[in-house]
């Protein structure tokens, strides 16, 4: 332990995130008396530029040997404050962090006194650790200059293009047989004249122009090993059961003779498709696929098309990447049985189904054999629910509904749109669509969450009734030919890939970023970034923005081809070591060697191989091994401070 050390301690208010529950001034007073604490301050935002500048000045002016900042999780700002130390010409490993937000103020917001007491102990423990914090040199490891992008929807494809243009190798992995994700399902879009299919085609063609992008469709990520910089991925690539360049006429006949019909998920089960299929003519990749879950292997298709081979097998491929960018998208909310007449009334469908109806029909809008004139849209189905449901706003569904209503009126004419909403959120440019809808004569009726509209079948119509708060609560009703339930985005029901990486989920069950403003595309899993609607409801523009951000972040991890690692490795106390071999046996990396020194056989650490796991330390009977920055002396001094 170094004598006469001088450190600075900074206690953060975090706006009020900490100081609303923790008496930060009391914490400062409690720790200021420690023998190595030369100065102690509270600060509104420790991470702010102005405070960082003050810290640099303090370190230089007072010739400090180290710094402790008590603020949020080190996952968020450990690097920030290590960098502050470096800017003040202090070795960054002399910095020690105390987490008094996630582990004190927030965890104990129900007990301010308890939270304050705990914060005092946590800062004292950090100061105890600072007694021992010494300058270190960080070793570097090779980082694979390749990024895996999981999901080839719009976000995934844009991220792949962005990475490729930064001269980074990209592995684009798509679980479905075709690229494009949800956007490929949409025809007209707002606020562009490009259709969803055209956008998908354009992006796919751009992908094909880049030599450094490998596209794997019909491929699922099933394994990962290693850590940031060198992550080994295992991908199961399922066959399409159709080889090479087959004749389009043969394929057409193969689809015709296929006897299997299953509900078409691409059309949200509004229609059926065959077991051998392609969702739309210009879809990519252009080769159709056989859905082996539905196929009966009757062999009829093989008889008419020589390119079909039902004996093809799935293959497992391994790839090493430096970072993984998740763009796995969303599911649409499926209403519960009977929710606003869903599944119990023929006239009730969801918004995604309605959009497919608009896209696939011409001339007249027909539902169940009848022409549709009056359409009632019920908003916020499955969103903004009370406790127990999805409490969040799905953000894009108001605009999407109004866009669909305007499109339906333009395409089919003679359509009357009635919007049963709970307040509209057509933010930014999307307000233009709302204005179009009003000019078209659409009727808006509004209720609070405790007075939702009711849906009652009556003959071949469906009566939608509401106490409209825009007309002083007057009871109004519409005899609708079609009721469209405005369903929002929900997290993917199949979260296998999230579970594989142990990606944390937030309150809404979407993947969670480290910090929505400061680290908006990073996760707590080192090297894994997130983009698009897997992080939360987003429209296309927002998904693309996050994809570009995540690709830049992933690239920054691998761009140099090497990564700094923590210099926290094991060290042997030569005097104590008696070489029993237990440490060598415990080390999973073969980093411990037997050596001779001064006539004694002792253990030696191979510093270039040691990963700093510490597995060797508890098995050493004479207690001759310690980890740097996690030594017995440090841990015990922290226990003293916490006791």
């Amino acid at each position, binding site marked *: 332990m170094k004598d006469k050390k001088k450190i600075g301690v900074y206690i953060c208010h975090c706006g009020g995130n900490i100081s609303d529950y923790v008496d930060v001034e009391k914490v400062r007073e409690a720790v200021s008396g420690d023998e190595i604490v030369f100065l102690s301050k509270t600060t509104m935002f420790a991470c702010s530029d102005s405070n960082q500048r003050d810290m640099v000045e303090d370190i230089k002016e007072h010739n400090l040997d180290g710094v402790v900042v008590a603020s949020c999780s080190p996952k968020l700002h450990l690097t920030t404050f290590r960098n502050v130390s470096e800017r003040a010409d202090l070795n960054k490993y002399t910095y020690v962090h105390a987490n008094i937000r996630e582990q004190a103020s927030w965890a104990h917001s129900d007990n301010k006194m308890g939270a304050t007491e705990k914060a005092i102990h946590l800062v004292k423990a950090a100061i105890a650790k600072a007694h021992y914090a010494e300058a270190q040199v960080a070793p570097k490891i090779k980082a694979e200059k390749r990024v895996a992008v999981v999901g080839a929807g719009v976000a995934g494809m844009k991220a792949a293009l962005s990475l490729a243009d930064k001269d980074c190798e990209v592995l684009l992995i798509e679980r479905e047989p075709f690229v494009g994700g949800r956007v490929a399902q949409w025809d007209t879009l707002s606020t562009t004249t490009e259709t969803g299919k055209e956008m998908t085609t354009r992006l796919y063609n751009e992908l094909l122009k880049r030599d450094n992008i490998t596209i794997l469709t019909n491929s699922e990520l099933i394994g990962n090993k290693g850590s940031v910089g060198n992550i080994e991925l295992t991908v199961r690539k399922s066959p399409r059961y159709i080889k090479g360049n087959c004749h389009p006429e043969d394929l057409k006949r193969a689809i015709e003779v296929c006897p299997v019909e299953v509900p078409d998920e691409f059309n949200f089960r509004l229609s059926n498709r065959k077991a051998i299929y392609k969702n739309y003519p210009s879809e990519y990749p252009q080769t159709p696929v056989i859905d082996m879950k539905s196929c009966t292997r009757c062999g009829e298709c093989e008889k008419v098309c020589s390119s079909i081979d039902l004996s093809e097998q799935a293959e497992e491929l391994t790839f090493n990447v430096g970072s993984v960018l998740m763009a796995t998208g969303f599911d649409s909310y499926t209403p519960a049985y009977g929710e606003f007449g869903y599944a119990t009334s023929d006239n009730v469908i969801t918004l995604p189904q309605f959009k497919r109806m608009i896209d696939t029909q011409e001339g007249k809008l027909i539902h169940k054999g009848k022409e549709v004139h009056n359409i009632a849209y019920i908003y916020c189905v499955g969103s903004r629910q009370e406790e127990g449901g999805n409490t969040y706003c799905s953000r894009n569904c108001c605009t999407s509904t109004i866009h669909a209503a305007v499109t339906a009126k333009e395409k089919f004419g003679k359509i009357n749109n009635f919007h049963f909403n709970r307040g509209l959120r057509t933010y930014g440019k999307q307000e233009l669509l709302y204005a179009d809808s009003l000019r078209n004569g659409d009727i808006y009726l509004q209720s609070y969450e405790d007075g939702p509209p009711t849906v009652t079948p009556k003959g071949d119509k469906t009566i939608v009734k509401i106490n409209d708060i825009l007309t002083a609560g007057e009871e109004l009703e519409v005899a609708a030919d079609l009721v469209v339930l405005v369903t929002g985005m929900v997290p993917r029901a199949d979260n296998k890939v999230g579970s594989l990486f142990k990606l944390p989920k937030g309150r809404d069950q979407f993947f969670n970023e480290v910090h929505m403003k400061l680290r908006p595309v990073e996760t707590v899993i080192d090297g894994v970034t997130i983009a698009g609607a897997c992080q939360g409801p987003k429209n296309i523009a927002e998904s693309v923005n996050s994809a570009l951000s995540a690709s830049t972040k992933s690239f920054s991890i691998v761009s140099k081809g090497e990564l700094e690692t923590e210099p926290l490795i094991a060290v042997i106390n030569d005097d104590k070591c008696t070489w029993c071999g237990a440490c060598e046996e415990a080390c999973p990396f073969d980093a411990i060697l037997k050596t001779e020194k001064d006539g004694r056989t002792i253990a030696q650490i191979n510093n270039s191989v040691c990963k700093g796991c*510490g597995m060797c330390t508890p098995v050493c009977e004479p207690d001759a091994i310690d980890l740097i920055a996690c030594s017995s002396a440090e841990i015990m001094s922290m226990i003293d401070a916490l006791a």
Partner: protein
Amino acid sequence: MGEFNKKSAKILVFSTEKISDPAIDMAGLLKLHYPPTVYTISVPCSSAIKPSWILYAYEKGFDGVFIAADGSDCVYGESCTEKTGNLVSKTHNLMKEKELDPARLRMAAICSVCSASFVKQVKSFNEYLLKTLHN
């Protein structure tokens, strides 16, 4: 131990930087409350915890020690689970020698998203410790 807190026992948690720390942080983020006398010391891997540290914690007045273990998620390899189990077993024996109730040391695998599980574990441990030590 400091002044006896009738509502909560004093528990030292050994967490791990990459696996259980994120879960404990997320418990705070989600305002999943647990006793404020639960303190965390972070280590790289749960199989790096020395039995002497655990015994020292009891000596200094902690009622219980909880190891928020990496389990099968450990970034350093699959052997972590067995090795952490071994050190717990070894510590239990040392505790018996010192006439300490081995149940005052608990271990559970806490993955990076196991916030609710962590809170449930420490609350249940707190209840056990209050019942057995402070009745």
